[in-house]
Structures are given as C-alpha cells and as structure tokens.
C-alpha cells in the first residue's frame, strides 16, 4: 500500500469518524490527556514529584488528610487554604527593641473562618544567624512567635513551624489578653497556636474563637549588624501557610498532594495502556495471519499454544507472578502483553482464512511473491484496520490490570500510578474514614480513561467493521 493510498484511506476514515459524536468526545479527551502529559510541569504544583512521592520529608509542610480547597464553596465556615509565599519584602528598619534590623515581611490576607493548621517559615542560611519572628495582626496587636539562633550554617535549611516552635510564646500572648479565670480553666497543651493568632482577643478568647479577618504581617527581624560580616547570609526565605483545605484534590494522610499524584500518574496510565495494547494486538494479528496462511502442522501447533494461553486466568497468574518476582513496570507490561495478544487471534485467523483464498493472493503467488511478502503486503494491510478498534478497546483492560496489581501493593514502587494511590488509600482505611477525595479521583480517572478508549474503539469498530470493509 503506497503512501497515497494510505492518506486517501485515512481521509476516508476521518470523513466517517467525524460523524461519530462519541468518537469525537473520546478523541478530544485523549488529546487533552496528551497535552497534559507533554506540558506536565505546567500542571504540576510540585515539579520534582517523580522521585519524591514516597519521601515523607518532601511533603512535611502540607496538612494531613485535608479536603480539596474548593470544598470551601459548599461549607458554611470557610477553612483556610494552603498558600505559599515565595518572595518577602525586605526593608531596613530601626526597631525600638533591637536597634537597626533587616526585616523580611510576608503579607497574609486572612479571610476565613477557620484558622490555618500551621505557618512554616523556611530559609537557607550561611554562617551565624539570629532572628526574631513575630506576627502583626490587623487589630494592631503583635504576637511574638519566637527566636531562632543558629551558628555554623553552610547553606542549611532553617525551618520554623508555628505549631511546634511557637507554643510557649503564643501562650504568653494569651496571658496578656484573656481573663485569669479562663486561663486557669484551660489546659495549655490543648491550645493550638494558629487558632489564637487568628482569633479576636478578649476575655473569652479561649472558649469562643471569633475569627479576626484582615492582613497579617509575618515579620522576620534580623539585626543589621549581622550582615556586616559578609559570611553571614540568608536567602530563599519562604512561607507556607498550611491550610485546613489544600490543593485541587486535597491531601492524603501522609500529607501528599493528590492532584500532583494524579497528574504524574496520567503519563504512566497512558503509556501502560497504549504500549500493552498496541504490541499485543500487533502480535495477535500477525499470529492469526501466520496461523491461517501456513496452515497444516504450523497451524495445529500454533493453535494449541494459543489455546494454552486462552485457558489461563490472567489476573491471578499476574498477581502470583508479581508477588513472587517483584517485577519492575517493564516486566509487568511484558507479562500483560503475554496474556493480551490472544484477543484478536481467533477473529483474525478466520478472516485470514477467507482472504487467503482470494484470487489476488493466488495471482501474487503465481507472480512468485514470497510468503512473507504476501503476508505483509497483501494480508496484513487488510486486517490491520480491524485491529485498530481492537487496540483502543484493549487499552482500558491493561490500565485496569496494572491498577489492580498496584492496588494489591504489587506495583512498581519507582513509578506513581493511580492504583498505588488507591492502595495507600485502602491501607489507611480511607473508605471507612470518609476521605472521599482520596478514593474518588484515582478510580474516576481510570474509569474516564476506559471511557475515552471505549468511545474511540466503538466508533472505529463501527467504521472499520470487517463485515462492511472486506466483502
């Protein structure tokens, strides 16, 4: 089949395909997925997720098991969302207490009803550093959060988390404002620093917390004299406000951002599904053609091998295989192909048996064409279109099979797949704890992937149906 033939047939196919609404929907979703995979960094809030998915410290600034941020839309009391501030405004001031200081200021507009869980400052320091950290509230009060003193830094990470490092100093703030009686009744270990910082002051500030909305200023004051010595420096100062709701799809109990996991898993799902189905269908089609064309003893033996593969239950064997050999994703794909290639064989064989008897095959033979030339030049091009629909329709099966393995905890731990996210969810009892944002999206994406390829496959099947195309 020449190039011209091919483009002609492709154009013909497209003219038919355009009429299939569901097929177009499928094509649209698939195109969208490909775009997302190609432009992955744009869609990922955490760029270097691929090696860090199982690294607990990578995720430590996130809230655990937080619902998605958009749940605020349906909630009566709005919860603070997770926000990151990258660049503070830097100024040199004259502080009444510390003298000349350099101040790093983050402005946090707080407009929620429920306070954040934590406020975490991160920086990279060199040499000796001393800083006073405080928070200026919209009502004019200032909450002293704590001091950080570190020496001998060589570009080390500095981390100051309000929830753990500022408990004592926030309690001082309560002492200044709440009534004696309330303080004596309260238990200092039960006080959450962020809840105090973002609540109005008053006699009853411990029992009823009325949110104080407005602009908060998080200030890091470093004595200016420190920087006279050139070896002391601070850079990369960042602030993370850990909300009660977080990200597009929330977080899991190990604080991982589920949305990032889903996006990073998309490329694997697509890859696993497509590579498995394409290779296995091609192998199956060729197997069927060779079976039919050669006939005789070859056919008998090959049909027998085919029958052996058909009578094996795929998933149980895959599970036992991966439980024992702990394979990588490549071996998993390989063994899936070993089971999926049987799909088109039977149909292709019977179709090839008919084509084999056609007169033009006879003519080719008479002209002295070799067996393989006839198979590849005359039979395969006729039977391949049929296999395209088959390819699309066997993608979901491969994706689901890999997810099933991962769900059992037998997946490749070096990749992120939707099944693995579900496995973690299942392990933490997400279903029974009602963490729906952890279970719904991965499965939903598997289902949507399945739907996409079903749309494509059924549309193609309708157009390329062998009964209509090959006499």
């Amino acid at each position, binding site marked *: 089949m020449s190039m011209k033939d091919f483009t002609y047939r492709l154009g013909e196919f497209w003219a038919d395909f355009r009429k299939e609404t*569901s097929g177009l929907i499928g094509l649209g979703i698939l195109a969208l997925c490909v775009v997302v995979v190609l432009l992955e960094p744009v869609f990922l809030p955490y760029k270097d997720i691929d090696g860090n998915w199982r690294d607990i410290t990578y995720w430590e600034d996130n809230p655990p098991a937080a619902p998605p941020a958009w749940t605020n839309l349906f909630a009566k009391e709005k919860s603070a969302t997770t926000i990151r501030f990258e660049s503070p405004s830097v100024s040199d001031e004259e502080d009444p207490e510390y003298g000349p200081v350099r101040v790093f200021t983050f402005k946090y507009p707080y407009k929620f009803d429920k306070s954040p869980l934590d406020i975490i400052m991160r920086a990279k320091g060199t040499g000796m550093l001393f800083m006073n950290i405080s928070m200026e509230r919209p009502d004019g009060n200032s909450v002293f959060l704590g001091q950080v003193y570190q020496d001998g830094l060589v570009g080390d990470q500095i981390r100051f988390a309000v929830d753990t490092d500022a408990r004592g100093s926030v309690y001082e703030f309560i002492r200044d404002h709440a009534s004696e009686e309330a303080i004596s009744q309260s238990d200092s270990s039960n006080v959450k620093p962020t809840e105090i910082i973002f609540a109005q002051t008053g006699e009853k500030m411990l029992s009823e917390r009325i949110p104080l909305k407005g602009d908060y200023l998080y200030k890091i004051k470093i004595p200016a004299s420190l920087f006279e010595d050139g070896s002391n420096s601070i850079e990369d100062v960042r602030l993370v406000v850990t909300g009660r709701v977080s990200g597009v799809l929330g977080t899991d109990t190990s604080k991982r951002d589920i949305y990032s996991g889903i996006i990073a898993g998309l490329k694997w799902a697509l890859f696993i599904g497509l590579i498995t189905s394409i290779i296995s269908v091609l192998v199956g089609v060729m197997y069927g053609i060779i079976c039919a064309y050669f006939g005789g003893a070859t056919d008998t033996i090959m049909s027998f091998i085919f*029958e*052996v593969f*058909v*009578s*094996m*239950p*795929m*998933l*149980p*064997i895959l*599970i*036992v*295989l991966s*439980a*024992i050999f702990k394979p990588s994703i490549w071996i998993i794909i390989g063994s899936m192909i070993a089971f999926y290639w049987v799909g088109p064989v039977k149909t292709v064989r019977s179709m090839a048996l008919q084509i084999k008897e056609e007169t033009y095959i006879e003519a080719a033979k008479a002209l002295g064409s070799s067996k393989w030339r006839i198979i590849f030049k005359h039979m395969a091009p006729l039977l391949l279109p049929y296999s395209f629909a088959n390819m699309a*329709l066997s*993608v*979901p*099966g491969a*994706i*689901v099979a890999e*997810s*099933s393995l991962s*769900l*059992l*905890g*037998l997946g490749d731990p070096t990749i992120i797949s939707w099944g693995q996210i*579900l496995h973690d969810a*299942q392990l933490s009892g997400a*279903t*029974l704890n*009602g963490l*729906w944002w952890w*279970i*719904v999206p*991965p*499965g*939903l994406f*598997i*289902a949507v*992937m*399945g*739907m996409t*390829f*079903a*749309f494509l496959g*059924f549309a193609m099947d309708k157009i390329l149906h062998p009964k209509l195309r090959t006499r």
Partner: protein
Amino acid sequence: MYKWYAFKRILRGVFMFALLMCLFSLLFNQVNEQTQRSQINEQVKMESMKLRNMRSEQLTAWRDNRLDQLTKLYKLDRPLAERVLFRALNTITFRFGKSTIIKSSKGDQDVLTILLEALPRTMVLFSVAIVFELILGIWLGLKKAQKPGGRLDKSTSFVTMIIYGMPSWWLGMMLILLFVYVLKLFPSGGVNSVPTPQGFAFVLDRLWHMALPIMTLVILGFWSLAFVIRNLVLGILQEDYIMSARARGVPERKVLFGHTLRTAAPPIVTMALLSLLASLSGAIIFEGIFSWPGLGNLYWVAVQQNDIPVLMGDLAITTGVYQAGLVFLDLIYGFLDPRIKVGGKA
C-alpha cells in the same frame, strides 16, 4: 453423539489443566522449593525439641538423618525435571501441603481445607450476581433490539461505553462510601455479623451482607450483556423465519421469547458464562474490597502474609475453576446448539 463430544471436551480440559499445572510448577519451582526447605527445617526443629536424653552429637546425627529423610520424601534431592513433575502431580491430585501462616476457621493449616472453605463463598456471590445480570441483561437487550436507534437504545449504549473501563472494585469502594459511610444502610464487608445470628436470621444476615457486592457486580455487568444481546437479537430479527412468523400472526411476545431467544440462546449463554469467568478472575480485587472471604480475598491475604503454599493452591484452584468453566461453556453450547449435538460443524 453428544456424549462423545462431551467426553472429548472434558478430557481436553483435564489435559489442559494438567499441562498448566506443570507449567506453573516449573515457573515457580524455586520459590516452592525454598518454602518447602524452610518448612522441613521447621519440622525437624520442632521434632528435635521433643527429644530427651540425647547427647549433643547424637542429636546432630539424628537431625541430619531426619533432614535427609524428609528431603528424600519430598524428592528435593532428585533432578529438576523430576522435582517439577512430582510437584505438578501433587497439585493435580489436590495435595497442596500445609500453609505457612494462614489457618482455616477451625485452625487447620491444610491448604486444601482453607481453599474449600473459601470456594463456596465465591461461588455463591458470583452465581447470584450472574442470575440478576442475565435477567436484567436479557430484558434490556430485548427492549433495545425492539427499537434500534431509539432513545432507550442510544442512551443505554452510551452508558455501556461510559462504564466500559470502570474497575468493579472502584465502584465497590464508591458504593461503600455511599451506602456505608453516608447512608449507613449496609455493612462494610464480611459474610456475617458478629455475633452470627442463628436460623432464619442467619439467612437474612447473609443476604444483607451480600447485597452491596452483588449490587456492584450487577450494576457494572448487565449493560455490556444487554449490548451484546441487542446485537445478537437484532441480527436474528432480520431473518426470514421471523418475518414469516410475524406474517402468520404469531404474537410479538412469542416471536421474541420463543423464536428469537431460542436461536440466540447458545451465544447468549456463552457470553454470560464468559463474563462470569472474566469477573471471577477480577474477583480477586473485588472480594478484598468487601472483605468477602472467598478465593479472591485469599489471594489478598496470602500476598500480604507471603504464604506461598496458599498462594499456589489458590492459583491451582482458580485455574481449575476457570478451566471447568470453559469446559462447561462448550458443553452447554453443544447442548443448546443442535448442530453440535448431531456431530455436524457449528
């Protein structure tokens, strides 16, 4: 004639099962032998602890002797081919040996007992589900075929495509989330409540536990069955004898259920059984979600506990059931299709 056909098909099934067991035995030879060796060591250790009044060199000699004896018994000293065949033969005759960790409900460690305890539970779940699927699938398929291209036909075909790649276990999770967590209507898993009620209440309790898994299977299953039945029935409805039946004034109900369904019966049964077999294979994950202690859940437990003998036994039984299903499929096809019954070609 049918008897001969059936005999041949069963024989082929048995042969295929034996062949697959040999293959598995070869494939998993190493891990099987490792497990067996550690089991033998364990056994010798246990036995030597019971011995009294023995000097240390006597004890070592006895131990070595016993180890040797057991190694010979399990043919671990023989060449590879013999070992593989020996173990395959054991599997074919359902001698799976002892589990390493998992116990049956009565505390038995015999793998076969554990498997036979789980098998009926899986069977009950899936046979009930397939009955519902068949009823709903045939009903919907006929409705669709009566008005092809109609609103019902189009919308249900659309649904079929939407749920095409939906994993049954995920739908199970969703239904648990909805019915257990939000509506609090059904139990989250298991076969019976604790404490288990007696008498009639036991049956009710069992049904209550079965409702959610069966609902999941049926919701996902009957669409595709209806889709296939629609295509089959549609093809048959265009045949001449249907037209002549209608022309003779045979009532439409009788045309549908008598003439059409009878002709469509063999492929429909094939489809239904094939989907049953496919779902049986997928049941591994599915049962784990509902903690339904069937064969599938056993895989889950065996993988987590790394109990190789149970895993192997489970694989053998599943393959056996699958194989039996394929044989049964052909037998029932031959029974329903008169062309095979008289020995012609289908």
